[in-house]
């Protein structure tokens, strides 16, 4: 047994002890959220409009998670996540229109690939190379990327220019076609579960430990010999793939995709979802998306508020940034728990 042999060691032990997680709130939040999500279509049976709303929430949560992976876990302020979201949406719409193909087992992986390739290209341009970019340049580079893509697509006739692409071929599995409803909801939920589980395993692994170190102090980590930019690039690409998946699902669900799905506007919405819910915890973005979309739906019918809803959203972002940077979850999750624990610890003996 470790018997404290010196006073210093005893004090160190005490400090370590007080840092231990008293009680983990996150797992409870996660379980409750997923149970609710699972039960939703059964509770809402008849109200198709609400099932549609929940499906949108689930799809957009995946999108918000992709932003969280960038900002909450890797410190990349990406103002252009929608670029991958929208691009994948366009690709599946085009594949449906030109190749008459919409089998989800084919198009969803394609969407992931598109997201991954685009983000790899952007990462190579912005992140890698001899000179380390400043965080401002990175943020601005993603913003410009999204903005330029939106302008490009707005003018390109093949992809429908300003009109966008409508009447998108319905997503299919074999001969079953998915329209808005419980079937689509469960596909989206499955995607969320897979993405969530995968991300959670990743950020709680030793890889995640490196990311945590990066969040604390990038320079120090670089001095340890870790290629920080590579890690960032990997996370960026992963986030891009996830954004692509959600973009394809959104396209199929709405039946419409336009330049707005690529631009800074939608990217900022992801930022708001994530920050509001609580970035740096994967369930935060899900909660944030749900809260904001539900509120938006409820308030949309009240004329007076509807016009000013985006103002409210902007104010929410401002308030969160200024006063409660840890978002909603920050109110109940301790700082220690936010840091998390990482995989199998190799004890020094």
């Amino acid at each position, binding site marked *: 047994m470790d018997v404290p042999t010196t006073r210093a060691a005893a004090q160190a032990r005490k400090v370590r*002890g007080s840092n*231990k997680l*008293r*009680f983990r*709130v996150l797992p*409870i*939040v996660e379980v*409750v959220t997923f149970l*609710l999500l699972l039960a*939703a279509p059964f*509770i*809402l049976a*008849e*109200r*198709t*409009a*609400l099932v*549609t709303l929940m499906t949108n929430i689930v799809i957009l949560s995946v999108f918000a998670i992709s932003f969280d992976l960038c900002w909450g876990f890797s410190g990349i302020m990406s103002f252009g996540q929608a670029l991958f979201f929208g691009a994948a949406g366009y690709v599946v719409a085009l594949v449906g229109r030109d190749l008459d193909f919409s089998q989800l087992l084919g198009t969803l992986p394609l969407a992931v690939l598109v997201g991954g390739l685009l983000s790899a290209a952007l990462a190579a341009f912005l992140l890698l190379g001899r000179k380390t970019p400043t965080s401002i340049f990175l943020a601005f580079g993603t913003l410009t990327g999204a903005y330029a893509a939106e*302008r490009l697509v*707005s*003018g390109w*006739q093949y992809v*429908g*220019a*300003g*009109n*966008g692409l*409508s*009447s*998108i071929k319905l997503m299919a599995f074999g001969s079953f076609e998915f*329209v*808005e409803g419980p079937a689509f909801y469960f596909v989206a939920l499955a995607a969320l579960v897979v993405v969530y589980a995968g991300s959670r395993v990743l950020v709680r692994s030793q890889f995640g430990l490196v990311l945590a170190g990066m969040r604390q102090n990038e320079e120090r980590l670089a001095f340890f010999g870790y290629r920080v930019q590579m890690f960032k690039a990997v996370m960026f690409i992963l986030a891009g793939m996830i954004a692509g998946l959600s973009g394809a699902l959104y396209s199929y669900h*709405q*039946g*419409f995709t*336009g330049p*707005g*799905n690529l631009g800074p506007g939608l990217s900022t919405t992801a930022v708001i979802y994530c920050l509001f819910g609580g970035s740096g915890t994967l369930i935060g973005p899900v909660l944030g998306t749900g809260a904001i979309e*539900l509120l938006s739906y409820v308030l949309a019918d009240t004329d007076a508020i509807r*016009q000013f809803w985006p103002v409210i959203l902007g104010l929410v972002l401002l308030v969160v940034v200024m006063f409660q940077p840890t978002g909603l979850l920050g109110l*109940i999750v301790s700082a220690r728990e936010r840091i998390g624990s990482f995989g199998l610890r190799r004890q020094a003996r």
Partner: protein
Amino acid sequence: MSETDRTRGITRRHFLNGAGALTAAGWIAGFTGGWVLRPRWAHAAGPIKMGIATDITGAIAPSGNANWQVAQFAVEQINTAGGILGQPIELHLEDTASDPKIAVGNVRKLIQERKVDVVLGGITSAMRQAIKDPIVNRGRTLYIYPQLYEGQECTKFLFNTGPSPAQQCDRLIPYIMKTLGKKRFAMPSANYVWPQLLNKYARKVIEANGGEVVFEEYYPLDQAEYSATISKIKDGKVDCVFNTVIPPGLQPFVKQLYESGFQKNGGVLSCVYYDENLLNYHPAAEMEGLISCLDYFQAVDDPFSKTLQQGYAKKFPDTKYLFTAGSASTGMYRGVKFYEEAVKATGGKLGREEVAAALDHAVLKEGPGGGAAMVPGHYHAKMNMYIAVCKSEGGKTRYDVIDKADMVDPREC
């Protein structure tokens, strides 16, 4: 870690989580309960639900608001006269916000929540393309599109009550070429489907009459700098600009064209969607001499049209949204009245197939600019077409009608 700490911790945090979950569940239950209870959404036979999906905000708002007001006006007339076979029409409005992305979500609400029997709306072709799928395919609902457009919309259950390219160009372009003597055309256009297909048709007519299209160019909708275009117009000695640029790029273009002295040197500006509403968005001097071809102008001397205008002015005194043709208002009026005729013909049945079958050959004896008749099997309507020229006097503009063609065939589908 002591036992007591643990229990204390569980209690407080557990409570918060539990409370949160319960509230969420209660909220959702409240939703479902609330809507089933409210009688407005009862499924028993009730009013006829008509959905209007138009641009109340955004760049196309001037036309959208006119549409909405005309719809209210037409429906009020029908309801005051006892409704359609005793059933009143209930109007439901959703704002498509001149943004297809928002429109898709809002139109879906009309279909899924309000469960309307028919949707009228969409102004730009971009909007129509975006919302026709949620309405016609996924929503399995009837859709009436009221605006002038580029043609080739032959979707089942989608009826068009605005003019087609044939109706607009077949007389206008020969008039410009023969009577005004202009042979060299320029086609500055907004970059989307309506200008592209309209230009294709117009080009055929121009070349068939011995004219020449000097250039045809497409710009982003919000383009503000047109110096390159103006210089091409000057260098190419263009004498007629067949404009399909739409707001927001429209105002800078017209201003820059005027400032370059195009009209001063005898050039003619022609624009087939220009009506009285749009005249108000430019200084009078820039509009002098503009030539347009529509299914109705307020200057048309027709007793029924005049009565309509008076009724509209009474319902909406001093409104800036005029009852005009270019804003799809005439198409909206026609659409509402065609629907009334069709439901009368089916004996009050509102099912999509029956109403569509009746709509297919609906006839209006009277309307703005004259009557109209759907061409069976072709989803489009015959209507009177007028050519008009804008005159400005003392800072005010008006249209002078110079030509009329009766019941022109749309030649579509």
